[in-house]
């Protein structure tokens, strides 16, 4: 019995300690974003690798989800003669929820793991120490550009995902569900409010921040060679995923109030 309590206590303490470390890291990271110098060449490089090169993944995810969503809503809606609401529900589901969450989760895999592995390798091969001895702050050179690129890049990616997702629904609706194309599009746009898109964009910015922050944190503190770098990448994906899902719920609840 006592042993059991001790185990739980130890777990809680470890969790608190980890949260504290992460919070300290994030505070330092944010400070590095707002103090000069800002390395524009690094920012451009990260914008390319985090944003631009994620487009195919985001596009594919969105088109398939939009199409599947349209089919599901059509089938479900048919049970109470509400098939005509397919366009409205598809666009709401995508902009408010599926666009940002799926983009966030896909990038948690692609980007968080990549950042953790790259910075982790730099840590274990002493490249981060070397950077410090060359009078360059690794937070400013490595962390800040990734944080900015992901936080600003994910909202843009989500706008693309929203558009492509709606198109996925549209294609299925006119090709296999017998909708009229122009009516579908008019229904999509008429019922959409700017706050729906805005909620998704805010979520995306938060998820982008989480993805970069968790990836950088895990990479930065990794130790113990290739094994440690692998562990950092795994932890980054798991950590970013859980944080994204929890944040998604909190933000949705807050905005729906």
């Amino acid at each position, binding site marked *: 019995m006592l042993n059991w309590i001790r185990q739980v206590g130890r777990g809680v303490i470890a969790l608190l300690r980890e949260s504290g470390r992460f919070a300290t890291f994030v505070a330092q990271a944010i400070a590095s974003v707002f103090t000069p*110098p800002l*390395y524009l060449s690094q920012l451009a490089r990260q914008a390319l690798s985090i944003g631009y090169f994620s487009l195919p993944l985001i596009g594919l995810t969105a088109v398939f989800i939009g199409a599947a969503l349209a089919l599901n809503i059509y089938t479900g809606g048919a049970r109470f003669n509400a098939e005509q609401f397919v366009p409205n529900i598809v666009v709401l589901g995508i902009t408010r929820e599926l666009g940002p969450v799926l983009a966030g989760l896909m990038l948690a895999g692609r980007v968080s793991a990549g950042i953790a592995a*790259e910075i982790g390798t*730099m840590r274990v*091969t*002493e*490249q981060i*120490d*070397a*950077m*410090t*001895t*060359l*009078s*360059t702050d690794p937070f400013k*050179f490595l962390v800040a550009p990734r944080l900015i690129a992901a936080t600003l890049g994910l909202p843009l990616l989500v706008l693309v995902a929203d558009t492509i997702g709606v198109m996925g629904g549209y294609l299925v609706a006119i090709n296999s569900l017998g909708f009229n194309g122009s009516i579908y599009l008019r229904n999509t746009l008429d019922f959409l409010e700017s706050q729906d898109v805005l909620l998704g964009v805010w979520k995306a910015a938060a998820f982008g921040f989480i993805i970069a922050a968790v990836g950088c944190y895990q990479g930065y503190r990794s130790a113990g060679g290739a094994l440690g770098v692998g562990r950092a990448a795994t932890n980054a994906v798991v950590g970013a995923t859980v944080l994204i899902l929890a944040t998604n719920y909190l933000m949705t609840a807050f905005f729906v109030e």
Partner: protein
Amino acid sequence: MNPKLALRGLKKAFGPKVVLDGLDLDLAAGQSLVIIGGSGVGKSVTIKCALGLIKPDDGQVLLDGKVITNARGQERQLALRQFGMLFQGAALFDSLSIWENVAFRLLYADGVGRAEARERAIETMRRVRLAPETADLRPIELSGGMQKRAGLARAIIAKPQIIFFDEPTTGLDPITADAINDLIVEMVKDLGCAALSITHDMASARKIADDIAMIHQGKIIWRGPAASVDSSGNAYVEQFVHGRAVGPIQAVV
């Protein structure tokens, strides 16, 4: 006269493992000091404490008589500007080309323009006998010896006053190792800077050292001119210099 760099009573433990246990060391301006000692006795940790990459649990690091142990911000940057470091594995940035590695400090800390930085990088590369044709290659395309040279060029480009070398010759064949030794001697003489080097390699130590110091169980147990290392009269030093498994030092296998 104040030593250029002084370590005073440095202590550092990782968990229960005590690595440095009150280590004292002086380095005079223009002097080349080599630290010898077995694997895992804390040679790298000593250098990293001096550079501020590891915070000692206790003790002080003094540069020109000023305490820099916990220096931050501007003060730390000023200290780092006097230092150059060649890491054990060269630690080149693999996302950058060789010349960008060599010119890293100029490009990202000193705000020198790319054209001028490249010119100065290639000039420094020539000094360490790296062909200008390697300037646009990536670190992985270079052999170990060439990577060490690039690391050396990166460490000296801004004319530091103290250079740290962490095992500059390990993992190199004897000829390349000797060429690196020559380079180190030459660079130190040219720049007139002090050097603090770590090595296991006695041939290298004899060649580059004015003074040799031996570290054991977290302290400096012997120090003397390089020439006297064979007649130190210290059982630990004798065992190390002659590489015997039997003696006061227990080999960890």
